[in-house]
């Protein structure tokens, strides 16, 4: 028997394999996560303070990413913006996926009326265009961070529900679920202990994808002026504020866009290159 370890890209000690693209993507995501957490320690200037005499200033040693349309430091604003973009999106995706997945599993396991009611209700919800729904809600209630989080999560619950229900229905048809039922287990035990561990992988992948959608929708809402309100700004709002700099190729409009792109593309790449477990244990 021959073993060629040379060809194995980064096989972990735990029997997992994780390729380079996935690791790079994870590094970018972690970086943004850390930036969001430690934003207050990183910023060289307060976000609201006008520090440059010029507007749409170029990149310099003093202002690393140039200055915006009022002469505020772009680096500080992007670093603080990470808090809003990452924070709001993480909160929204957590609510959306938890609710959707739990409801999806309940529907799959209960079947019958519960399933029909939940499915039709959420189908009806998903027929409302997401941007429009966001616009209407924010316009009606006014924009605040809790409102944004709830709106975004409500928009993405039906998708998470559909996905989890489809997976759970397949698992529910397995004999071990029948065994659990004839043992006399209740719905919640079946959901938590028998179904959830078996759908967790795909659900996590879906969570990542949904996170990307939420970042983009949040940026879209902010771009339309319905997101985070000035003087604070998330990345979408930064693009909107500085859109006037586009003809000059100002860094103030480029970097927030790059920030959005780097985060969403990294999440996508990470999902496509998640570490997977090596089943061949004798290696």
């Amino acid at each position, binding site marked *: *028997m*021959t*073993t*060629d*370890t040379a*060809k*194995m890209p980064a*096989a972990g000690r735990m*029997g997992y*394999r994780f390729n380079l693209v996935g690791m790079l993507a994870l590094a970018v995501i972690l970086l943004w996560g850390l930036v969001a957490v430690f934003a207050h320690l990183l910023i060289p200037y307060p976000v609201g303070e006008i520090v440059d005499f010029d507007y749409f200033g170029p990149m310099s040693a003093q202002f690393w990413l140039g200055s915006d349309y009022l002469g505020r430091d772009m680096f500080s604003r992007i670093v603080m913006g990470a808090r809003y973009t990452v924070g709001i999106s993480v909160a929204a995706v957590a609510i959306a996926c938890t609710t959707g997945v739990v409801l999806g599993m309940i529907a799959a396991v209960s079947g019958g009326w519960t399933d029909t009611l939940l499915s039709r209700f959420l189908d009806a919800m998903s027929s409302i265009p997401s941007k429009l729904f966001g616009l209407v809600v924010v316009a009606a209630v006014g924009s605040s961070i809790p409102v944004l989080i709830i709106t975004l999560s409500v928009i993405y619950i039906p998708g998470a529900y559909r996905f989890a229900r489809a997976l759970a229905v397949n698992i529910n048809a*397995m*004999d*071990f679920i*029948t*065994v659990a*039922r*004839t*043992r*006399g*287990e209740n719905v919640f035990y079946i959901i938590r*202990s*028998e179904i959830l*561990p*078996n759908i*967790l992988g795909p659900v996590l992948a879906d969570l990542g994808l949904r996170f990307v959608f939420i970042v983009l929708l949040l940026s879209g809402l902010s771009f339309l002026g319905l997101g985070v309100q000035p003087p604070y700004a998330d990345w979408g709002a930064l693009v909107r504020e500085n859109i006037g700099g586009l003809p000059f190729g100002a860094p103030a409009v480029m970097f927030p866009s790059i920030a959005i792109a780097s985060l969403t593309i990294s999440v996508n790449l990470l999902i496509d290159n998640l570490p*997977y477990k*090596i*089943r*061949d*244990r*004798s*290696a």
Partner: protein
Amino acid sequence: MTNLVEIRDLKVEAKTDSGRIVEIIKGVSFDVAEGEIVALIGESGSGKTTVALTLMGHARPGCRISGGSVKLAGKDMARLSEKARARVRGTEVSYVPQSAAAAFNPAATIMEQVIEITRIHDLMPAAEAKSRAVELFRALSLPEPDTIGDRYPHQVSGGQLQRLSAAMALIGDPKIVIFDEPTTALDVTTQIEVLRAFKAVMRKGGIAGVYVSHDLAVVAQIADRIIVLKGGEVQEAGRTGQILSNAKHPYTRELLAAFEPKARGAAPVVSEARPILAIENIVAGYGAVQRNGLPLVCAVRSVSLTVEKGRNLGIIGESGCGKSTLARTIAGILPTSGGRVIFDGQELAPSASKRTHEQLREMQIVFQYADTALNPAKSIEDILARPLTFYHGMNGPARDKRIAALLDMVQLPGSVRHRRPAELSGGQKQRVNFARALAADPKLILCDEITSALDTVVAAAVIELLKELQRELGLSYIFISHDISVVEAICDEIVVMYAGEKVEQLMPSATGKRPQHPYSQLLFSSVPKLDPHWLDGLERDPELVRAYCQR
């Protein structure tokens, strides 16, 4: 006689997901003479299908032929280019798969698919191919040979489809046909027709064959020579008669011994008059309830039976006869539409969700496929711990001790505790499956085809285990199977089911009387025996066959 096929020192290797290379065929050599049928026999994972596929120069994805030669009529299939192989496939070597149902395209007529080979290789005009196909249909004794080709695959039965796939393989006039377990998925009563048809066509055309199977008795009927494989190596090779009567290799002997399990000794004395389970006029089925109170599709029609304490009841019948539905009904998975289930003196609610904790505990069901019956995300320990906690409220060291005892009972090493089901073999998984049922301390275990997915040798070991546990724990089993020899080995009484009805209840043939009902006679006479002349000598009443084998 020249050799049509010469395989020399064939090696096939596979790459695992960690990039490690495993040799799955370790230097196999054998010949097939012209017009000879050679059987490759062995347990699952022995490499028998892999060897057969190399005859077409094919290795399954992730595998490759790494050494040796596969000479087919002078050409080395292992060295040919993919294009040259494609020319040989269908014209010189062809393949009959295990599941004909999966091999046919449901959207095209059978005739189109059968003559496809002649079209691809441009062998003959379509009209000629069609008349040749009809000839083959006739030779394979298919009903209505002139028109059966116009049907779609779903309009013919499984046995017919399997013969049609043989017609597909034979139309290009191959020198050799590979049969990959072609009768494994069929009922015994249909298997005979298919085997006969194969044998007749192969003999008449002087076509060589490689017959892959795990069933020694089936192989004995059709093969001239038998090659026993295990772990990718030839264990023994010889003429059929010689292998059956005078096997040299211990593994072959084990296979032969497993074929005829030891009959069950005298049943323990029945001390209680009350039966453990009595069912009365059970009706069950699927679909909406009709106006007459019956379900749309009735799978079980008014079946009554009783199981005495400490005794075993076998239920046999072909696929679709309602035997599994009956088990699911008794277990409350599928509520009855009529009739009563009386368990240990108490009438049970039709649905499991309405039964009491104790009632559920005392009757356990074990399913056929251990793969789907064990949660792949949990360790063996967790799987066994749940019923202990759930039924007996056990925790901590007491539970650990009990898990160890259970594993010991089903003869598994304690080291499997922390493994996941995917890391166990088929037989081990089935033992865990059974241990989980035992964890409940049941009085009755419903075994639904529990040995059908296992290799013969492994299945025999599981049956032995079941018998032993019964002696120790005083259990009763309801044992459902399509395999009569398995049922005879373990049961005190046998119920024969046909089309949802119980046709007869009898004793195992070793101890009891002969079957009386015509269907049971047909069923019992259809079980292949380890005698190469059995098929040729078998005579069946054509009236009976017509009455019961229409599907």
